[in-house]
Structure formats: C-alpha cells, structure tokens
C-alpha cells in the first residue's frame, strides 16, 4: 500500500507540541513507515507556497496545533483544512484556545498598548505599533493583524479529532497515531484520549476531601507529597481535568492546572465546562465543616485566596468557556 501523507503545523503556539512529536523518538520511525511528512515548518524546508500547490485533501492527516490569534493563523487553518482529509486539533491551544486564550480577557488594543507602549523597557517615542500595512523607506510590507479575540481551531474550521494536552502526553499521541494507522477510525469529533479525570491516575491519598481554606502554593509551608493536594487547600484542577498525563504535575507535588481540558461530557449532561465544574466543586467543599454556623465573612475568607478564579479555571480553555471572553459594561 502507498504511504499516507501527514502534516504538522503550528498557529498561535509555543512549539511545545512540535517537540512532543520529536519526543516520540523511536515511535517517529514507525510513523515514517506509514506516512510521508509533507509539511512541518519546524523541522522541514517546505513553504506555504508548496502547500498551496497541493491538491485538495492531498494530505491524509493534518496535526494542527496553536490557537487562532491572528489573520495568518486563520488563513493557514483554512488552507490546511482544504488540503487535508482529516484535521486534528493537536494540543490545548487548538483544542481549547490554550494559555494564549487568556488574551480574551483583554482587547486587541490593550494588548498592543501594553507590549509596545507601556512595557518598562520600551523606547518608542513616535508611539508606533506594528501595523498591518507599512511603508518602510518605500518598501510595502504586509503584516498580519491580530484578530479581535482568540479562538480555538474548531471555531474557524471543521475539526475531525482532538488530541488534548499542553503538550499532548507521548502515550496519548502514540495511542492516537496507532488508532489512525490501524485504520479503524473512531467517531468524528472525538477527543482521542481517556475519558476520566486526573484523580483517576493520581497516586496521592485522599483522607477527607473537605477543604478548610484555599491556599496558594507558597502559603503552604510544606506540601505533603503523599496526600491529595486539594485536601491540603491547593487549587488542583485534577478533578475537573481529563486524564492521560499520568497526573504529571501532582507527581511533582504541584497542583494540576488543567491542560488536558475537561473530561468527556456525559451525553446527558451537555457541555462539561472546566470552570463551572471546578468552582462548583471547590466552593462546595470549602469551609463546610460546621457550615451551619459559618458566617458570610468566614466563607468569603476561606475562598479569598482564590484571587483569580477565571485565570485559574480557564488557564487553557478561556475561548472554549461558556462566556468565551471578557465583556465590558
């Protein structure tokens, strides 16, 4: 049988997803036995023009990572969708918007102003911004402009599968690749990763899940490495986060930050949204010992150190949260 064609691309991303492919090591050889890599800017000298020259659906599988932050991201997403049979949102950014999705808490203008005018070391007397069409000594130079807000991949093109994680864990990628290679294609728009939550994989012991008060990691004089971090008052996103990473961060005694996104929703329970899920859980178990007598003020105090719920709950999923972005009123 003839080899399939595979492409890797990054949009608004950090490159971690690329490295996670490189980290497949030997597995990479196996991939190369089944696929020719026809586009991979990070590792190969193939340019956009080469892709434009391809036939529609010439690429069998396209692994697309990164969020849709600027016009170029969107244009290439549309291009690759056209050229690919199967489009896979690869990694948190394309899956849920990722950390750059936090940009949705500010407007495009606010971002530009901070970066090019306000930041401490800036030297910008004319107060200029990079602007989408500039004339530099008579040279017309186009530069893609930022979109008003960040989107996930499936907000701009149809996505066939998702591979979650920041970056996707090697095992998850391997299983996904093997599934694709094996040819028995799972139902469309499925997340190619296990369904339960990080707690399911986490080795830490649970004694009494009641949380006295929320603590910041530096406020805890020492972290008991054997005990559930949530119990110790740390806001661990594990309970609201899909498994597959082997509870990587908790294993390093740090709370999960939720990069794998929400677990698969129960078909009956519609949208399984990380933030909604987690605040409900954490608030319900905080300061509940003798809850009947706890005053409004105590409750507030117990939850007080949760200073930035949105930033924590949606660290990787703001554009896919129900409210999607900050509004103004």
């Amino acid at each position, binding site marked *: 049988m003839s080899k399939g064609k595979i492409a890797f691309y*990054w949009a*608004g*991303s*950090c*490159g*971690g997803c690329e*490295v*996670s492919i*490189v*980290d497949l*090591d030997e597995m990479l050889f196996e991939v190369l036995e089944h696929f020719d890599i026809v586009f991979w800017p990070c*590792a*190969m*000298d*193939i*340019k*956009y*023009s080469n892709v434009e020259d391809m036939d529609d659906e010439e690429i069998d599988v396209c692994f697309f990572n990164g969020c849709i*932050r*600027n016009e*170029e991201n969107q244009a290439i997403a549309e291009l690759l969708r056209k050229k690919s049979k199967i489009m896979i949102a690869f990694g948190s950014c394309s899956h849920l918007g*990722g*950390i750059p999705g*936090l*940009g949705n*808490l*500010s407007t495009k203008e606010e*971002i530009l102003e*901070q970066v090019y005018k306000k*930041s*401490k*070391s*800036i030297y910008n007397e004319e107060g*200029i*911004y*990079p602007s989408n069409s*500039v004339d*530099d*000594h008579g*040279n017309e*130079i186009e*530069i*893609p402009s930022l979109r008003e807000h960040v989107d996930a991949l499936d907000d701009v093109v149809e996505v066939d599968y998702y591979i979650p994680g920041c*970056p996707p*864990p090697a095992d998850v990628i391997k299983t996904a690749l093997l599934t694709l290679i094996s040819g028995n294609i799972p139902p469309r728009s499925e997340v190619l990763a296990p369904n339960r939550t990080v707690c399911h994989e986490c080795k830490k012991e649970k004694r009494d899940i009641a949380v006295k008060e929320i603590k*910041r*990691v*530096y406020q805890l004089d*020492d*972290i008991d*490495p054997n005990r559930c971090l949530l119990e110790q008052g740390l806001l661990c996103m594990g309970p609201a986060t899909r498994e597959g*990473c082997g509870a*990587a*961060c908790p294993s*390093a*005694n*740090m709370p999960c930050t939720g*990069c794998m996104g929400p677990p698969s929703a129960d078909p009956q329970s519609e949208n399984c949204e990380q933030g909604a899920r987690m605040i409900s859980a954490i608030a319900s178990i905080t300061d509940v010992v003798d809850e009947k007598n706890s005053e409004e003020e105590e409750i507030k105090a117990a939850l007080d150190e949760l*200073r930035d719920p949105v930033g*924590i709950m949606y660290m990787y999923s703001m554009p896919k949260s129900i409210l999607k972005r900050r509004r103004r009123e």
Partner: protein
Amino acid sequence: MSMIEINPITRLEGHGNIKIFKDDNGNVDSAYLQIPELRGFEKFCMDRQCELMPQLTSSICGVCPIPHHLASIKTLDNVFNAPPPERAVAQRKLMHFGYFLEDHLLHFYFLGGPDLLLGPDCPPEKRNIIGIIEKYGKDVATEIMEHRRMGQDIIKILGGKAIHPAFGIPGGVSNAVTPKQLDDIEVMARSLVKFSQFSLSLYKQKIHEDEFYSTAVVSDEYSLDCYNMGIVNDKNQPDYYDGDIRITDAEGNEVIKFHPSEYLDHIGEAVEKFSYMKFPFYKKIGWKGLVESKDNGVYRVGPLGRYNATTGYSTPLADKEGKELEKTFGRPCNMTLAYHWIRLTEVLNVSEQLLELALDRDLVLEGDLRTPVNKVVGRGVGCIEAARGTLIHDYEVDQNGLMKDVNLIVPTTHNAAAISLSITKAAQKEIDQGVTDKDHMNRVELALRAYDPCFGCATH
C-alpha cells in the same frame, strides 16, 4: 523595486518570514526579517496569581520552557525576598542543565544542524532530521535521540513532564531527585560528555571537508560587528544559571558589567512597524535602526554572544575546546556561523557541569527545598542564560500576590537586530543579479539559523 519572500522561515521555533526587496538591477536593496505573530503574554499575565507565572511563561516557548520557568521562579524569589536554599538551587540547575543539553542538541541535529551536516546543496526535502537519519544511519540517529532524551528525562524527573513542567515555588522547589535518580543522572552525564565530544568531532570533520562552509564561516557576508552580552561568574566565565550581565564591544573590551536588576539602565527596546518583534539595544550607545555600526547599540546573545562576553570555560574539557576555538577564530569572534561550534562547546561545558553536580551528592540530596515566604516585597527581576541567550523577567506583584506588571526580554529578541542585519548581508551577497534559486535562498536562512532563533519566544 520587486519583493521576494521566504515564508515561513523553516527549521526553527515560531513564525518568521524574510522579505527581500530588490532594485531594478535585481540587486538586493534591503531585507526584512518579519515576525508576524504576537500572543501578548506581557498583557494577559497581568492580574494572574503570581505563583502561576512559572507555568504561564514557560508556555511562551515549548522549545525552551525551562529557562522561562526558572527565570520566572528566580523573579518570584526576589518578589518575595526568599533566596532559595542551596539544595533547591541544585535541583533547579539539574533541570536547567538537562534542558540546555536537550535544546542545543535539538538545534544541532534537527533545526540548524542539517544545513551543515547535509551540506548547503542538499535538496530541501532531505535537509532535515530524516535526511540525517538516512545519511548517518539508524544507530547514530538512535544515539542522537537517546542523548536528547536524557535531557528531557532529567527535566521530567523533577517537573513531572519534560515540556512545561511544574516545579518552581517562590523560595524553592516542589520536588527533588532521589538518590537512585541521581545515580541515573550521573550515568547520563558521563555518556553526554562523550556524546558532546562525538558531536564536536562530527562538526569539525564536516566543516573541514565542505569547502562552502570552510570559506563561508570566515567570510564577511556571514560576519557582523556588534556588541555582545552574557551572564558571567566572578571569573568572567559563562554562568548559565546566575551572575552579573557583561557587555563587550566588537573588539572584545568590556563596556559594562551590571547586576541583572539594573537591566533597565542599560537595555532599551525599540519598536519597528514591520514586525511584532521588538529591537533591544544597549542604551548607552542608543538605537540607530537596522545598521551595522559601532555607534549602534545592536548586540548579540547566545553561544557567540556569551563566547565574546566571557573568557574561557569553567570545566577542563570545555576550556580545552575553548582554547582551540580561540586559535581558530580568535576572541572576540564576529563570525555568525561560529555559533555552531561554540554551541557544541557549551554542550560539553554543561555536560561536565552536570556531572560535577551529580557527584556533589550532599548538596543535591541534603537540606531544605524551600525558604518559607512571608510577605510580597513588590518588584522582582530574574535573569538566566537560556540556550539562545540572556533571558530577563521583571514582575510587579501586589499584596494579594496578583501580577500588576510584566516585562520580558527574551534571547531571540536581544538578537532581533543582529539577525536582521545578518540576513540583509547574506541576501546582498547570495542574491545579487537576481539569483534566487532555492539553495541560495536557503543560504540566507542559514545566516539566521546559526542563531538558533526562537520566534515564539521573541514576540511572546
């Protein structure tokens, strides 16, 4: 006036393109390196809980998440005025060295290296890791992958995962290596020392047999006179984790040495309309735009910048290699392609340091991992040498531990002006009289790949 474009620049991290403008005789008038992306970390990190910064900023770059993670945590040490215990620093260094090796090897074998190892005339579709595998065989390929993997494994041991680990806590770390793990690291270190020597020999043999490179390396088109910057220890040797920042001029004279917390007095960032990348410059000299001149504050960081801003190496084998470098290129050396050799020398240097640390068992295995923090002091600056050069984080944090201001100057950003100038020079030489075939275009990219730029980082 016509324009040719290299889009995207390939085999590096992040988005970039080169726009070359030619006059009517087909000679290059000017060339632009453009970074078309911006995510806006300096804005959306504001109002976040400060303890999350090591993880937030590590996702500025997935190729070099560790230096961001560590620079960030060093910044928070200062924000809370909580100097970490020695043992914690040792853990951080283990992780940092692991990263350093992984990253440099990634560049030599996957990103920039193939240009050298496969030669400039190698067809584009083969000019990559796959080409390397084909050319050097599966065994070498496996060696390469194994040793790169070692770096990743050390990071994973401490941070749970190799990319975007979780590990740093203000005033310390959350996790430490076990004696068993330290044994493994020692074994890895020894093997890495050998492998870096192998890589060096590979490089030298390649350069000497390839006539394009042997000439190109020393040619003017691939050289640039500018200032240099790097972190140094008290002997002015490169220190990759901590120390003062030293700047030297094109002749190698020290122009200033300062504590990182004073960086604002010495470094400014200029803005140009055609790119999202900012252009840092040495303030005392000032910013004159994209021109190669003694009176322009353009400087370089990363292996070459470090080499020029420092004197010798702290470890025996690397120091020996350094001597050979000096014999060949002299010090200072303004030849862009020299980046590769120096980079491999650093691999050796870091492998040796990793081994030293692995052998200092008391330091690594005994003592506290955290200095308890009490109150937020307010501002903090954290600085570290990433593979690609000096990395500066600068935070202001309020009493609730929320971020109030963020300023980041990232290695590739330091190099922004230098890279642009190198490209223009290469383009002017390689694409004269309208020659624009692929290889020549690649020779333009060659100039910039030597820097191992990371554009994701660069604009963040």
